[in-house]
C-alpha cells in the first residue's frame, strides 16, 4: 500500500521533469507521444502518474496498462476506462478513473461505470468543480480523490485539498507551492477504496 502524493506536477515530458525541492510531489505525464514517454519515464525519480488516454500512439487499453506499468514503471494509471483501471490494480498498482464533471447528470453517469474497488480512486476534471459539488455528490466519489485541470495557483490548490486527497498543478504553480505549506492532512493512502 503506497501513500498518494498530495501534489502531482503535470508534464508533457518535453523538458526534464522533477518536483521542485521541498515539495512532496509526483509527476503526472500527459499530452506526450509514446516515444517521448518511453524516453522520459526512466529518468523520473518521483512517483509517476500517467494520463493514459492522452498519449499519442498508445491505445489506452489493458495491454497498454501492462506496458506502462511493467516496462516503464508507472505507479498510477489515469484512465477513463474501468477495465484499464482494474488491469492496473491486477498488476499491483493503483488507478484513478478519470471523471469529466460537466454537469450533475454526466457526473452520475460517469460514476455508474466506476469499479469502486480498492485501488481505483477518482480523478475529476475540471478540478475547481469540486468546490461546487453537494456533499452527497462528493461522498459518492470513490477515494482517493484527485482534482485535475484549471488549478493554476497555490491558493486554488490548497482550497481544493479541503475536498481532494491530491491536486494536479502546472510546474509554475508547483514551484510556488514549494515555497509555501500544504494542509497538514493533505494526501491519502492509495488502495483504501
Amino acid at each position: 500500500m503506497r501513500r498518494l502524493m498530495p501534489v502531482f506536477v503535470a508534464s508533457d515530458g518535453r523538458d526534464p521533469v522533477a518536483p521542485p525541492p521541498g515539495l512532496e510531489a509526483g509527476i503526472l505525464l500527459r499530452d506526450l507521444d509514446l516515444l517521448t514517454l518511453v524516453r522520459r519515464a526512466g529518468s523520473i525519480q518521483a512517483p509517476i502518474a500517467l494520463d493514459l488516454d492522452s498519449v499519442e500512439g498508445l491505445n489506452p487499453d489493458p495491454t497498454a496498462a501492462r506496458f506502462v506499468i511493467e516496462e516503464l514503471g508507472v505507479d498510477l494509471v489515469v484512465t477513463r476506462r474501468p477495465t484499464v483501471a482494474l488491469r492496473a490494480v491486477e498488476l499491483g498498482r493503483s488507478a484513478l478513473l478519470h471523471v469529466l464533471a460537466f454537469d450533475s447528470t454526466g457526473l452520475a453517469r460517469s460514476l455508474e461505470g466506476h469499479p469502486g474497488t480498492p485501488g481505483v480512486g477518482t480523478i475529476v476534471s475540471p478540478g475547481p468543480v469540486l468546490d461546487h459539488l453537494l456533499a452527497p455528490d462528493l461522498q459518492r466519489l470513490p477515494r482517493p480523490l484527485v482534482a485535475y485541470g484549471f488549478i493554476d495557483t497555490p491558493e486554488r490548490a490548497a482550497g481544493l485539498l479541503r475536498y481532494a486527497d491530491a491536486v494536479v498543478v502546472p510546474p509554475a504553480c508547483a514551484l510556488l507551492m514549494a515555497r509555501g505549506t500544504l494542509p497538514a492532512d493533505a494526501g491519502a493512502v492509495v488502495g483504501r477504496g
Partner: protein
Amino acid sequence: MPATDANVRAFTARLDERPCCAALVAHERLDAALASPVGIIFVLRADGLALRPLIARIHAADKLVAVHLDLIDGIRADRAGVRWLSGAGADAVISSHGQLMPAIRREGMVAIHRLLLVRRGLLEAALAATAKSGADIVEVLPGVILPEVRALMPSLRVPLLAGGFIRTEAQARAVLAAGAIGVTTSAENLWSAALR
C-alpha cells in the same frame, strides 16, 4: 430554411427577458418547467424518436425548445439526426460536434456548440473548434466555473450560455456577471428566480 439573424435574435431575446433556462432530464419535471416563467426549455434526455408531442406541448406554453442531439436516445449525432430534430419542431440544437453546426443552421435552427472545460492545456483547441464551427451560441460546461476561467478565454464572436452545477442564485448571478447571457439549469428553484 437557413437560420437567420432573426432566429438567433428571437432566441437571445428570450434570454434577455429570462436568462434562466430549464434543463430537463426527465419528463416528470416537464409540468414544472411549463408552469415556470422560463422562456426556453433545454431537453437533455428524452426519446428522440418521440419528440414531436413533447415539443408541441412546450410550444403551446409559448416557450422555445433546444434539444441536445448528443444525449437524447434513439438519434445519431449526424446530419440526418439534425434533419429529424428540425422535423420534430426544435428551435435550437445543442451538440459538442462542431461539424454539425452548419447543418443545424441550414435547417433553420439555432446552433449551440458545447465548449467543455476539462483543463487549461485543452482550452485553446476547444476554443478554436468553437470559433471554426460557425455556431450561433456557445454553451460552456461546467458553467459554474465560468467566473473562474473567463479571464483565460478571449472574447468570442457569439453569445455565451453556461450550464452545469449551477444550483443557486449566487452562482447564476456570478455566471451572468462573467459574461454569459443565460444559464441552463435543472435546479427548479432557479427557474422562477429574477436574475437581472
